[in-house]
């Protein structure tokens, strides 16, 4: 069982405290929130330490340590390009996945005057940018999804063929419900219409093959086991895009970029075996939760989905209360319920799908997740849900 060192605690300033000691349960902590950020891959840890030692100089300078730093940066870029099967000069590193989206949208020629098309379930970073675009007098066209969270392809085709469309955005797979989008067909429609397609592949890169046909690709290193603070932006040659000056969020630190690239190469290598291991665990969660928890809705496409992520909503439950109850038992999960968000609004993804938004739990697995952990979660969940419902008088 891994111990996630998450910073200074009771042991004194600067002394890391293992995550397991921070929960009251006698059981070791179980981290099931890889969709927010996977634990650092061991290869990334080694690469980070080596690059801190060897890559501290400014790679733009003209002396020996700078040249060494430059070599490390070039090698990281080459590794990312090779893994994503793109050209090295198509790869940009940003300070986060959010910054990568902002750089992507801010650099498309004429985007400020164009109509934007996006699915209704894009990451909130894209939706916030769309809000700003409308506030600046621009037009946006949200495309609905069905009950399983799959974009309406007929509406998508019609939307990208409208006059004046200069940009379309579709995530590869939903970070909230795991549904994989019909990206090839959506990309074909964009190609026909001559509209550049931005694909947010944050949940796919390093886990499942990235769909073809995109113009701009977005990733975030902490989702694949790299360090936080590194986003990846890939822009295909020929796309009318130039890097915004300055790059939103600034440049990430070189050691973090090196670690991100090392983690990506490792995760991509392990991905087929990991997907084959995790997908049946998610199937087990989907089937067992539906069978053992009354009045529950297991959400998202049961087959066309990410291998590591599952979401369900429990009727009559407060999502925040359920998260706290699970946390007390040592399980770290996430929720799209409104009571767990800073805005007190329900998840726009669950709302767009028309599925229950309260009592919502997202479980997302990673390379350290085990069948034993999943079984323990499944054994404890029905009792916790029943207890909370009894407290609420239902």
């Amino acid at each position, binding site marked *: 069982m891994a111990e996630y060192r998450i910073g200074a605690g009771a042991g004194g300033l600067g002394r890391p405290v293992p995550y397991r000691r921070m929960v009251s349960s006698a059981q070791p902590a179980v981290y099931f929130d890889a969709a927010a950020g996977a634990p650092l891959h061991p290869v990334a840890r080694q690469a980070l330490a080596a690059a801190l030692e060897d890559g501290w100089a400014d790679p733009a300078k003209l002396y020996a340590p700078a040249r060494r730093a430059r070599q490390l940066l070039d090698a990281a870029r080459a590794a990312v390009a090779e893994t994503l099967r793109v050209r090295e000069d198509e790869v940009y590193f940003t300070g986060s996945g959010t910054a990568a989206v902002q750089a992507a949208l801010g650099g498309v020629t004429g985007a400020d005057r164009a109509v934007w098309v996006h699915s209704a379930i894009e990451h909130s970073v894209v939706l916030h940018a769309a809000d700003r675009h409308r506030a600046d007098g621009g037009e946006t066209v949200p495309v609905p999804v069905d009950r399983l969270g799959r974009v309406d392809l007929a509406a998508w085709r019609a939307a990208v063929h409208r006059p004046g469309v200069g940009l379309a955005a579709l995530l590869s797979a939903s970070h909230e419900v795991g549904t994989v989008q019909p990206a090839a067909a959506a990309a074909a429609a964009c190609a026909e219409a001559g509209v550049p397609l931005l694909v947010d592949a944050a949940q796919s890169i390093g886990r499942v093959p990235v769909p073809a046909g995109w113009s701009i690709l977005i990733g975030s290193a902490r989702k694949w086991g790299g360090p936080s603070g590194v986003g990846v932006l890939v822009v295909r040659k020929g796309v009318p895009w130039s890097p915004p000056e300055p790059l939103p969020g600034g440049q990430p630190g070189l050691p973090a970029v090196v670690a991100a690239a090392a983690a990506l190469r490792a995760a991509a290598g392990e991905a087929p075996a990991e997907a084959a291991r995790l997908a049946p665990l998610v199937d087990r969660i989907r089937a067992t939760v539906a069978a053992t928890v009354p009045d529950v809705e297991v959400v998202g496409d049961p087959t066309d989905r990410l291998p590591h992520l599952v979401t369900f909503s429990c*009727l009559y439950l407060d999502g925040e209360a359920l998260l706290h109850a699970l946390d007390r038992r040592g399980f770290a999960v996430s929720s799209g319920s*409104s*009571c767990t968000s800073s805005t007190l*609004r329900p998840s726009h993804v669950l709302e767009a799908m028309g599925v229950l938004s309260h009592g919502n739990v997202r479980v997302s697995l990673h390379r350290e997740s085990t069948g034993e952990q999943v079984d323990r979660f499944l054994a404890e969940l029905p009792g916790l849900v029943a207890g909370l419902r009894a407290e609420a008088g239902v």
Partner: protein
Amino acid sequence: MTGSMTGPTEPLDCRGQRCPLPVIALARRLPELPVGAVLRVLADDPAAANDIRAWCRMRGQEFAGSPAPDAYEVRRTR
């Protein structure tokens, strides 16, 4: 269906309550009404519009529309 009991009854006022409380109140109240009756729920939580519809779908009851902002009608069908 009982033909005489299809009009709205006394509204269930859940304004000011956070989800899931309006849905819990709906689930408690509706079985007290005869099959065919329509219950109007007043709720201003941002999740209410979505979750009252979802409850109707999950429990096999009929969502009869939103006649006004923060108002939702549910018909007991079973």
